[in-house]
Structures are given as C-alpha cells and as structure tokens.
C-alpha cells in the first residue's frame, strides 16, 4: 500500500467528515445539494465513531447530543432526520439505529476516560441523557421475540425488507452491542442494569445459536419472520431463512460479540472474501449480484471493504488488511470516497432492468446524471453517490486500527 497516499486520504477523510457535520450536530449522509443531505442514525453513528477514532471527541459528543435529543416518544430513533432533528423518515423500522446510537455513546464514554476512566470519563453527559438511554433500551427489548430471543426489524443495513424483514444479523448485532453498551454506561453511573445484562446475554447467545450455520460454517443473514410477536414463529407467514452471503455476517466480531479469532468468525470472513470480493474491480460487494438492487449497478462498497480490513488487522494478517485498504486508497477520487463503484457495463444492465420493470423513480434519474458526469465515467467506472460520508468514517477507523497494529511508531 502506498502509505503516503493512504495518509493523504486519511487526512482528507477527517476533513470531509468534519466539514459535513451541521452546526446542530448531525452528520450529513452526503453533502448538501447531493443525494442524501439528511441525517440517518446509521450513517451518523458510524460518523460519530469515526470522529472518536480521529480524536475529535467534541464532534462525537455534538453528534450524540443531536441524536439523543431527536429520540421519538416511543424510544425509537427514526430512519432519517432533518438538520433540526425532525423526523423525515419514509421507511419502516430500522432498529439497528437504536443499537448503534447506544453503542456509539458507550464508545464515547470509554474514549473520554481513556486510561483514567474513573476520573475522566464523561459521566455527566451520560447522566444527562439517562432517560433517553432507558427508553432506547426499552424500545429494543419491545422488539425482542421471547421465543427465540432475537430482535425483530423490517429494514436493516441494506434497507431491503425482502431479505431483512425478520431477525436479521446486523440489526441483532448492533442492538446486542447497544444493550451491552448501555450496561457499561449504567455501571459507570452506578445504576442497576442487571436485567439489561441478562437480556443482552440472551440476544448474544441467540445470535451464536440461531444465526450461525454449523454445516455452512458461516453466520447467516436472516431468519425471515413477518411479525415480531409470532409465537410459535414456525407458523409465521414468512418463516424461512436467508442463507446467502452478506458482508454484514461479520457483524458478531465487528461489534465485539465474539472474538475475531473465533473459528466461526474466521470461516464466515473466508466465505465473505471468497464470494463477495469483486473479481473484476476488486473491493467488497455487499451481497450477491442476483439480489439486483445496487442502484447504479452492482459493485464493491468502500465502507464494507474498509470494515472487513479490521478483521485482518485484528488477526495480524497484514497482507490481507493491505489488500483491502489499498483498494480503498486506489479507488478514492480527489481523496474522497463514493458509496460504491460499478462499471459502465453493469450500470447499463441495472438501468435496463429498472427501466423495463418501470421502477426507475425521479431521484434515481438525478443519480444517473451524476454518475455519467463524474470524471471516472470516462475511465469506465460508475461512481455512485459521490461523496458518501460513511466510508470516510470507516476508513478513518480502519486505517487507525491498521496503523496502531502494524505501524506503531507512526
């Protein structure tokens, strides 16, 4: 990997991240005037983690303040907000946002304490929002199915109910990590959080038991179930499993629910790398091509590629970590990152599919124009949603992990 280029990209990722935080605290998913000038709790949480990783704790705190104040009366964090914290969501429940906010808050608390947690950790901030934390935890637990101890959602990270409606792995891992995060915060504040710990343990055990396939030696994507309270779930209208490979099957280790060296994780990552590494373009796709729902054409995603490099870094596999991060560095344009990359040929295939099916809506037409007018189009690439802020945060986290492990003197 060209370390000089990587450093330049890192610096610009930090700059881009900070520039795209509204004074009210929300991180835009993409800059004003582009495709997603809103605040999405999922993207926003990763941006908070990126800010923390880059040492900008004040910005992380500002981001947390924004989101914690925007909680709905039910305890839910919506799919999307405007810069004033008003709900502008248009999709059904995406419960991973609840888990991610709690998780990010616990990481903030930990980061403010550092080596002197007892004396320095920002307990005052957490105490100020304790009621919000309680409601966020309650909301997650309201969506837990007591027969299988998993969290139900309609959408998850891909906003694709066809494959995510039910007990989906990313939603469960983020919520479980969020519950454990709330436990850590509660303990730091001297609260009685024994019941939350028990609930979090139940979810963790259920992920390892029900969302893992021993014969495939891989975590699986989802147990599809229509209703959260179906009991027995075998009689639910959807009752089925999605066993396709998905980049987020790495989530149990990513969110600290199992060790990176755990064989279940090693084998899952092996499957992801074998089946989702793009043979033509490099980089990691998010799910199989046949799901046919990559706006702008099938292709690798910068944030999933950065994310999976963390695994190789954790297990000391520098070659693979470099393979992943180097691809991100090479694909950056003007030291900024798109959502994902496709080829002109795949773009046209996607366009044909969506045109024939008559599902090409207005917002996609704008996106198409932007893809075709991007300088990389002439080189045969479709750069889709440029820039998207989320991958900048993921690269910050991944590159910092890489530096810490392999370049400690840097």
């Amino acid at each position, binding site marked *: 990997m060209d370390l000089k280029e990587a450093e330049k990209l890192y610096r610009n990722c930090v700059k881009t991240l900070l520039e795209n935080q509204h004074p009210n605290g929300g991180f835009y998913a993409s800059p004003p005037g582009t495709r997603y000038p809103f605040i999405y709790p999922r993207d926003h949480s990763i941006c908070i983690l990126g800010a923390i990783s880059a040492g900008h704790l004040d910005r992380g705190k500002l981001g947390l303040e924004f989101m914690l104040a925007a909680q*709905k*009366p*039910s305890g839910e964090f*919506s799919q999307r907000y*405007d810069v*004033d*914290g*008003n*709900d*502008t*969501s*248009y999709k059904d429940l995406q419960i991973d946002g609840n888990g991610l906010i709690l998780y990010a808050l616990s990481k903030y608390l930990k980061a403010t304490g550092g080596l002197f947690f007892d004396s320095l950790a920002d307990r005052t901030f957490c105490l100020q929002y304790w009621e919000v934390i309680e409601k966020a935890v309650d909301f997650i637990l309201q969506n837990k199915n007591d027969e299988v101890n998993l969290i139900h959602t309609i959408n998850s990270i891909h906003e694709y109910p066809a494959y995510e409606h039910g007990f989906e792995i990313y939603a469960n891992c983020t919520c479980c990590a969020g519950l454990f995060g709330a436990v850590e915060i509660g303990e730091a504040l001297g609260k009685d959080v024994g019941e939350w710990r028990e609930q979090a343990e139940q979810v963790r055990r259920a992920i390892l038991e029900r969302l893992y396939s021993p014969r495939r030696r891989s975590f699986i994507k989802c147990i599809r179930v229509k209703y959260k309270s179906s009991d027995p779930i075998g009689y639910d*209208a959807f009752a089925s499993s999605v066993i396709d490979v998905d980049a987020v099957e790495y989530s149990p280790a990513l969110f600290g629910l199992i060790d990176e060296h755990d064989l279940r994780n090693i084998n899952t990552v092996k499957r992801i790398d074998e089946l989702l590494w793009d043979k033509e373009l490099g980089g990691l796709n998010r799910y199989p091509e046949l799901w046919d729902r990559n706006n702008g054409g099938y292709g690798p995603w910068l944030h999933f590629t950065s994310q999976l490099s963390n695994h190789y870094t954790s297990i000391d596999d520098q070659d693979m970590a470099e393979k992943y991060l180097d691809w991100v560095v090479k694909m950056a344009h003007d030291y900024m990152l798109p959502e994902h990359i496709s080829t002109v040929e795949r773009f046209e295939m996607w366009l044909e599919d969506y045109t024939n099916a008559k599902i090409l*809506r*207005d*917002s996609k037409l704008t996106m198409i124009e932007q893809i075709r007018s991007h300088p990389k189009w002439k080189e045969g690439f479709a750069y889709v949603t440029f820039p998207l802020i989320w991958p900048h945060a993921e690269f910050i986290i991944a590159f910092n992990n890489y530096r810490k492990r392999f370049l400690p003197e840097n």
Partner: protein
Amino acid sequence: MIRLGNMLPQGFLIGIMDLVNIMGLEKTSEWLTRIGEKLGETQGPGFDGAPEGDLNYLPMCPFTDELIRFIDMFGERPEEFKRIVEYVTEREGSNKENVERPAVVNTLCLLHHGYRKKRAELAGAETLHLACKCSVPELPPAYNMEAIEKAGVTKEDVDKILEKGVCVFKFIKRE
C-alpha cells in the same frame, strides 16, 4: 380476499361506514382526524413526504391498496365514504380563514391530515395541504386554493407535482 391475518384494515373501513350511520358525518370526520392526531403524538415531531423545492409530496397513497381492495369487495365506492368527503369539503370549504384545512379526496385523507398536521405542529410548523389526487379512478383531484396561494405557488405548479404524486403539501416553520 380476507384472511384472518389481514382483516383489521378492512374491518376498520367497514367501521367507518357503520359509524357514519350511527353517529353521523360530523362525529365520524372528527373521529378520523382525532385518530390521526393521536397516532401523530406517539411519533413526535416530524415532516411527511419527499421534498420538491419548497413543497413536499407523497409519490403514492399508502392507503390505496386497502381502499381498492375494499371497493373491489363492495362493488361501488361506499355511499358513506362519498358523503364524508362531500361533507368535509363543504364544511371546510366554507371556512376560507382556515387555510390549514385538508384537501380531501377520500375518507382516509382526514386520518392522514390529522397525523401529518399534529407532527408538524410538534415540530413548530404550520401545514398547508395544497392538493390531493385519489388513485381510485374517476375522482377529480381536490385543491385547497387558499393554501396554494399562501404557499406562493400556482395551481399549475401543483398539477405538475400531481403528475408524479398524489398528495402535495407545504410546511411553514412558525417564528
């Protein structure tokens, strides 16, 4: 086709018909609006729809599928539904001062408007419902001309959005 698992929305529509006959048009329309408001309160401050310049719109009506299913079952658009729309249009239309009134094209517009308006109110905004188009054939769009004027647009602007959507509205932040 009714299955036990999906009878609730259809049952609700039958309930509206019955309520018109039991309680009358005024009470039924208030009841529908109140349901929307109560649901809005549970969700807190928020703004509906996709932005289109200064306006917002819904690309499709979330109630259409159930409504059409209902009409398919009952043959005609139920008389009670028509009467609610006529009643509200006449009552609200006569009060030109109430620029925040809904542009009603079907019964469930009341439910939606109560919900949308309550959430905008919680966010400190006024709601102008400019127009609405029903996906049920043969029904003309409904307009709120006072709202269109206050929004600073023309009927032609609104019609342009109705070509790709069903419901046009504007939120104005209160000072």
